[in-house]
């Protein structure tokens, strides 16, 4: 494989080593180091050309920039880079969390693979790039040719928002679109392929080199992947919330023996679910179609019931269905025009609600085509691979609730909780959420609900390896008596000294609602001391509320304890983030 960093003067391994060395440096240290290296360079009297090539982009090269949070965009970008090199197209891969926004001004050819997260937000760590280019005074980009692949999830009202906005903005700034933007839903494989081919065609024409006639054998993925999951056996399925709890949270243990799967604490497991049989029945009933009717799925023909059970998303609502319905029902089409109502529609409704509330005559094939492919779900792995060889543990909140007089389920969580099946899984690495390289570095783990899962892996791992860094858990949920997930284990860890401290916040126990952010502020002094000792901060769990509230609380800690101005606190937190000392995994 040709390195995507071929244009660089240092081999890829060298760059990785360098990055490892400076991991954990704050901004000041990084700047100082760059000066130090520059000094070394002068001393070595490096040939000018070599240095210049590192900083001046090759005008012929295509730069592939990606913005990812859960890895999909990166994988697509990597595969594009691979195909480019196989086609003798010069290409360079860049992660938007690492590049300075202005880099774009110096490029002539850029293609973007960008995901949308949060509620229409950029992926973690790429905010600065997008903010810069959306500013009113952003520089013009007349010389740039580009294309955008937008990743998203059409069950969100702000579908592919970041990719769309980027596309519009680049045109506004004078750049030239060389291939139409493609918006991908969660079943992005085919769309991504189509877009990649379009971009490559254009690049090949451009580079004046005829596409080599050789057929490149794409490596058959021998390893387990999203498209080739491993059928794991369920070893344990234990409810871990108390009988009185408002939530059903399961501790799941899966057998990975002989899968060849490897993971590290911080990674997630992808689960390919099947829909609840009762929901399949409900959809058939609501549409009045016979489940035995044959429908086409790609190259396959299967009975409709089978398609709904294993191949199509029938829980979370997605855009195509809404569009189809809007074509027939003015009431729905009115919603499409009203962003707030649309958001509300996606937030509160599942497929079955639409089918029931706006009954329509559906053909079997038509229905299947209006539904998207059933996408995998990610679950943070809650175990250390070294403490539990051949196993992966998950902490799964079972989605089941009543609304509009109907029971609703979540596909994957119920699939796991129902047990008994072989569970198709793959590993989704998350380099953004790793234990510190230094075993002595203290860590503060902040999480709510199932956000506690990766911390179980962290602490288990550090304990297994005898790491001596202090571990501090700050956990929140609803009720102490029933919702303190893995309480026995945490208390045991504290007793034996593996956990230095546990702070808990239960929102529904007292008259006042207490959340993790309140504990953070209460413990401001201590938290600041830990930061001074080089602690890494982790935040995991709810993206909608907790992540933001925790961020605010951390700012307050910095203002209060480090005496920083509000602006400086924001900068300081950004520095911590950039230095890998403030990491988030929120969903």
């Amino acid at each position, binding site marked *: 494989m040709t390195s995507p960093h071929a244009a660089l003067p240092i081999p890829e391994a060298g760059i990785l080593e360098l990055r490892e060395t400076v991991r954990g440096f704050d901004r000041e240290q990084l700047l100082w180091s760059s000066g130090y290296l520059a000094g070394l360079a002068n001393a070595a009297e490096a040939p000018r050309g070599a240095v210049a090539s590192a900083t001046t982009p090759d005008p012929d090269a295509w730069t592939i920039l990606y913005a990812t949070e859960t890895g999909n965009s990166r994988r697509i970008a990597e595969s594009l880079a691979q195909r480019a090199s196989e086609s003798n197209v010069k290409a360079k891969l860049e992660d938007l969390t690492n590049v300075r926004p202005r880099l774009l001004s110096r490029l002539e050819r850029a293609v973007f693979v960008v995901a949308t997260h949060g509620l229409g937000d950029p992926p973690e760590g790429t905010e600065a790039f997008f903010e810069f280019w959306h500013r009113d005074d952003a520089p013009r980009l007349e010389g740039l040719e580009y294309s955008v692949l937008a990743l998203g999830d059409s069950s969100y009202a702000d579908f592919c928002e970041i990719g769309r906005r980027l596309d519009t903005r680049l045109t506004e700034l004078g750049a030239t679109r060389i291939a139409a933007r493609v918006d991908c839903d969660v079943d992005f494989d085919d769309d991504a392929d189509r877009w990649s081919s379009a971009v490559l065609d254009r690049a090949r024409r451009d580079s004046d080199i005829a596409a080599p006639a050789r057929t490149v054998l794409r490596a058959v993925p021998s390893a387990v992947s999203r498209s080739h999951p491993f059928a794991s056996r369920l070893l344990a399925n*234990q*409810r*871990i*919330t*108390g*009988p009185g709890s408002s939530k059903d949270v399961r*501790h799941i243990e899966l057998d990975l023996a002989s899968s060849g799967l490897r993971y590290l604490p911080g990674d997630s497991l992808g689960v390919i679910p099947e829909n609840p049989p009762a929901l399949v029945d409900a959809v058939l009933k609501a549409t009045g179609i016979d489940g035995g009717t044959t429908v086409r799925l790609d190259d396959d023909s299967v009975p409709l019931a089978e398609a709904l059970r294993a191949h199509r998303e029938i829980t979370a609502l997605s855009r195509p269905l809404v569009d189809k319905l809007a074509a027939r029902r003015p009431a729905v089409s009115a919603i499409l025009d009203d962003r707030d109502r649309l958001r509300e529609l996606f937030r509160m409704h599942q497929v079955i609600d639409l089918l029931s509330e706006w009954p329509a005559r559906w053909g079997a094939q038509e229905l299947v085509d209006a539904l998207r492919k059933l996408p995998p779900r990610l679950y943070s792995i809650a175990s250390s691979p070294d403490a539990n060889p051949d196993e992966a543990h998950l902490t799964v909140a079972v989605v089941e609730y009543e609304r509009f007089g109907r029971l609703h389920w979540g596909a994957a969580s119920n699939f796991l909780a129902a047990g008994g099946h072989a569970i198709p899984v793959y590993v989704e690495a998350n380099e953004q959420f790793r234990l510190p390289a230094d075993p002595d570095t203290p860590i503060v783990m902040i999480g709510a609900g199932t956000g506690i899962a990766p911390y179980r892996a962290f602490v288990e791992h550090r304990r297994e390896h005898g790491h001596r860094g202090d571990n501090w858990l700050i956990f929140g949920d609803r009720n*102490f*008596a*029933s919702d*303190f*997930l*893995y*309480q*026995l*284990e*945490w*208390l045991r860890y*504290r007793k034996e000294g593996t956990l230095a401290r*546990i*702070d*808990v916040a239960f929102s529904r*126990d007292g008259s006042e609602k207490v959340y993790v952010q309140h504990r953070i502020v209460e413990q401001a002094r201590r938290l600041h001391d830990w930061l001074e000792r080089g602690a890494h901060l982790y935040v995991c769990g709810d993206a909608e509320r907790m992540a933001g509230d925790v961020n605010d609380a951390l700012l307050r800690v910095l203002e209060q304890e480090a005496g920083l101005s509000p602006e400086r606190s924001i900068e300081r937190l950004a520095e911590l983030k950039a230095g890998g000392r403030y990491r988030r995994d929120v969903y």
Partner: protein
Amino acid sequence: MATTESPVEKIKAHSDYLRGTIVASLADAASGGLADDDTQLSKFHGFYQQDDRDVRADRARRKLEPAYSFMIRVRVPGGIATPEQWRTLTEIAKSHANHSLRLTTRQAVQLHGVIKRDLKATIRGINDSLLDTIAACGDVNRNVMCSPLAELSGVHERAFEVAAAISEHLTPRTRAYHEIWLDGDKVAGGADQEPIYGSTYLPRKFKIAVAIPPQNDVDIFAQDLGFIAIERRGELSGFNVSVGGGLGMSHGEPDTYPRAAEVIGYCAADRAVEVAEQVVALQRDYGDRSNRKHARLKYTIDDRGIDWFKRELAARLGFRLEEARPFRFLRRGDSIGWVRDHRGAWNLTLFVPQGRVIDSDEHRLMSGLAEISKAHCGDLRLTPNQNLIVAGIPDRARIGTLLDEFGIAELQAVSPMRQLALACVALPTCPLAMAEAERYLPELGAKIDELLAKSGLADEPISLRVSGCPNGCSRPYLAEIALVGKAPGRYNLFLGGSADGRRLNSLVEENIDEARALARLDRLFSEFANRRREAETFGDYAQRSVVESS
């Protein structure tokens, strides 16, 4: 005898007069329990850490710690409480505990199910009502018992005063209790003193009761130290002193055993406090601090002999006890129903099933008693047998109406056997329970009632006591029939205690289930009905026909 101190001794010694790390334990929100050492010290403050044993295994599977809560024992010396105090307890039971009050076999009240974060408010609420919890448990003198119906003769009033004085005199002096629960100021280092107990307190619990013959409702022979009131010309002259009673034992450990107290002499009424202090001091100095299963006064006496004990006590007192006076006990238990005292006021002894004051589907005992306590201007008295006396009632009719209204009157219609029957708390709260007791007694009682009726013994006042384990909190070893828990659904059967509570019963069958126990009793009841001697009690009959003949 081992010479190393028991672990609890170390905890006490390092506790800084019972403080330990209780304050930190209370502040730790990650656990509903206390640090291990603090669970020992908490007892001195009047509460026990418990967990709901019905859900223990299930919670462990869910990776949750046990459902910890606390049992708080409220000390009520001599069992006398005001109506206001009763109402406060009812309120606290509803707001902070499991909506029940549990009357105990020592005239105290227990709250169950108080969670950690409510402990402080609960204990403070109890103290605000001028009751307290200090020394309700722990290695100190416990609630001092006294026959509760003081008005039945002139003697009783003085006897109660003596009980109260002993209780007061033997209350620990540490400021830790005030400091932790009532936000008292911290005393400067070293200012705490325990003139009687010293910094390691007693080797084990210590129990005192005052009995007034002919009623042995306090079960004087179960007590470490007993004062038996002696009357002369209608006045209290003094007390016979009994020592060395105690019932706890462990299955399969013959070195542990129940022991009935023995009477060692007589002292004048105004010497009782002094005697109590010196007996306590003697036990403090000679009690076994290495083995908690061998640390009660009964073992100190058996190890060194009663003569040694008497000599040592006389030396400490500076005088010898006089010759014991003659006395006679006729009954135990409480006389359920109305009785008029020497001043002409009415007193009502209410039968409280298993001592559990609750509102249930059948009755609203808890609400009813709260209502009565509003209407009532006398006082309320806890009996030594888990019942309640409404004392000094001027207007009988008003109370009667309330009893009917709340379904309490109906509860009173039980057989004499049921009136006397006792069961300890056991499951689900007691951590030591091996079998059911409180929750089982109603069912067992009904079955035994049937057997008695079959043999024409329905009105026979036979004492039945059930304990969930051999510790004997319902004083089973002094019952005519006792079941002592061994395992779920399995009990040891004891027979042959005397009706006056002086003679211990004996183990006759081990590890049997209900069917076997009932079959045995059925046979014995019919034999007893046919062969009993003139005025012979069931306990005496069982003693001669089963225990002594085997």
